[in-house]
């Protein structure tokens, strides 16, 4: 494998633990992310899918080493970005990567933007941190970037404060901040969740357009499978801090192999469907400090059998680029006899 074939981002066995107030003398930890591994190639769009609480946002924050304390990335985890080991980088090089080579778009622009600074100065801040451009040049590039993300009257808008802009415009500002240094990898944490559906479509279109222009890789975190279908080339499904299925997008939608993925797909209401009630996955995601033994999904799985309680399945190969963490891969006959 030559250097250019090496993935841009390689995450191996990522574990993020939080101390719990467990009784006894041993300080116990709860792993919000437990053994997550995935790669992102240059220019690729990978979607990280899962319900709230499955650890996807934490995974994203860990890539930039921004896991909030008291959480910590445990030893044994490995994050390689463009040849650098993110977890052992010194502060200077880490600072150089953040915002310049790897950038993040946060979920809720109203809280992710500083309310006491104008949007223009916040975008310009990225330039001031990473370049030595003059004030004039910084301003020009800021206004240009605002125009590129589709904000009309950019020069006037740049002098406004976040609360003076609409939700869609604020999200565009966040995108401008993330992309102004043309990073190689952009992590978008649910960039459309806080927006109206029509604005969602515009933002996704904007991301697609910018992706084409810059050739950036995109790690898109979402719980919305519609977004996945539109944007992803590869999908990673997470549940309770683990990867439960990964595949390219066509395979995932056509032939999901993990019952959780099947449940997610079945829950999407479809045009012309006859049933009155939406399909759901019974139960809820277990908290990291109270996970069931064996397979973490077994309490909600329609196919669970005795092996699921005793042995956690490994991530098993299903197709050429398709893996699923389920015993059914090895024992497909069990599918014929779902529980109740």
């Amino acid at each position, binding site marked *: 494998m030559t250097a250019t074939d090496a993935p841009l981002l390689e995450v191996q066995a990522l574990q993020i633990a939080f101390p719990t107030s467990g009784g006894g003398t041993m300080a116990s930890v709860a792993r919000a992310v437990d053994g997550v591994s995935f790669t992102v190639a240059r220019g690729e769009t990978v979607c990280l899918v899962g319900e709230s609480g499955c650890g996807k946002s934490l995974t994203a924050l860990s890539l930039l080493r921004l896991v909030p304390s008291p959480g910590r990335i445990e030893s044994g985890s490995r994050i390689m970005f463009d040849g650098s080991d993110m977890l052992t980088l010194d502060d200077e090089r880490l600072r150089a990567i*953040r*915002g310049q080579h790897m950038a993040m778009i946060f979920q809720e622009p109203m809280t992710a933007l500083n*309310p006491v*600074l104008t949007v223009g100065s916040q975008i310009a801040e*990225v330039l001031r941190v990473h370049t030595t451009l003059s004030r004039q040049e910084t301003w020009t590039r800021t206004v240009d970037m605002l125009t590129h993300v589709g904000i009309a009257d950019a020069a006037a808008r740049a002098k406004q404060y976040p609360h003076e802009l609409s939700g869609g415009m604020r999200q565009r500002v966040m995108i401008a901040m993330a992309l102004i240094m043309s990073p190689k990898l952009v992590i978008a944490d649910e960039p459309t969740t806080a927006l109206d559906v029509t604005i969602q479509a515009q933002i996704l279109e904007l991301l697609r357009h910018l992706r084409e222009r810059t050739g950036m890789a995109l790690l898109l975190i979402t719980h919305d499978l519609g977004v996945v279908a539109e944007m992803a080339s590869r999908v990673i499904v997470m549940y309770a801090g683990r990867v439960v299925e990964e595949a390219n997008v066509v395979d995932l939608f056509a032939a999901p192999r993990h019952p959780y993925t099947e449940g997610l797909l079945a829950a999407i209401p479809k045009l012309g469907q006859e049933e009155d009630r939406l399909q759901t996955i019974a139960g809820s995601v277990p908290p990291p400090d109270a996970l069931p033994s064996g397979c973490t999904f077994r309490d909600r799985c329609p196919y669970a059998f005795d092996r699921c309680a005793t042995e956690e399945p490994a991530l098993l190969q299903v197709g050429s680029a398709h893996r699923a963490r389920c015993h059914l891969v090895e024992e497909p006959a069990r599918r014929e006899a779902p529980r109740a």
Partner: protein
Amino acid sequence: MSRRVAPAFALIALLVSVVVLGPLLSPYAPNAQLDIIALRSQAPSLAHPFGTDAVSRDVFSRVLDGGRVSLALAVLSVSLSLVVATLYGAISTLVGGVVDTTMRRLLDVALSIPRLLVLLAVGALWGALSFPALVLLIGFTGWFDTARLVTDELRALGTREFSVAARAMGVRGPRLLWRHLLPHLLPTLVISASFGVARTIALEAGLSYLGLGIQAPQASWGTILHDGAGVVETEWWLSLFPGLATVFAVLACNALGDALRERFAPDHVPTLATSLTASSAPSSSRTVRP
């Protein structure tokens, strides 16, 4: 603007303009002994609206001049306190870890020392203090509660999502603090300053009354009160007018602080419930507006 801010600003404007225009308004020089025989200890009259004192100085002029001194002392020492408090809070937050915890605990200790006793002790030991020395003394003993506010608020701000977002684009500690977080502190600092000035005006009046603050012959509201201390019944004007002036100034500053706090920090406005619980938990961190 809320209902309270406009009247509060009006009071402050009145106070400041009277004090600033003092030299133009006062009919006599504040320390001029006009006629030691004929005009000593005169009750208020048309010529001397606030009367004259034991050495025939015009009290009205002295009150105006004293106002300048009292207010200058208050404003300068509070400004010093603010700067020290902000620096302390900033360093504590920047360094973080054990140093931060230690600095905050030291602050708790400092907050438990009764400030008035310290000032009285220093005044008694050192005797007459010059104006700059007084500013330094009052300033360096009065920054602890503002520092507490600063450390609490900086700590809370550091966990907000925009702080994480700023760090995600490569902004580091000092820059984060200076450009991104300190602007949030301005309302808190201004409010703290308003109440601080009110407290310091009253403090100066008390100290000078005891002979430990501003020294004669310089007029200040406290020194005029000092002059009138033994003769409150006979020369009541020496106590009434500087007393009223002090009350008015303290009221104006407190009104401003209240109005600003209502407008900018409504969660910190004390109610009966919060003031009862606060007195039993002096070093608990306050809730900060999310």
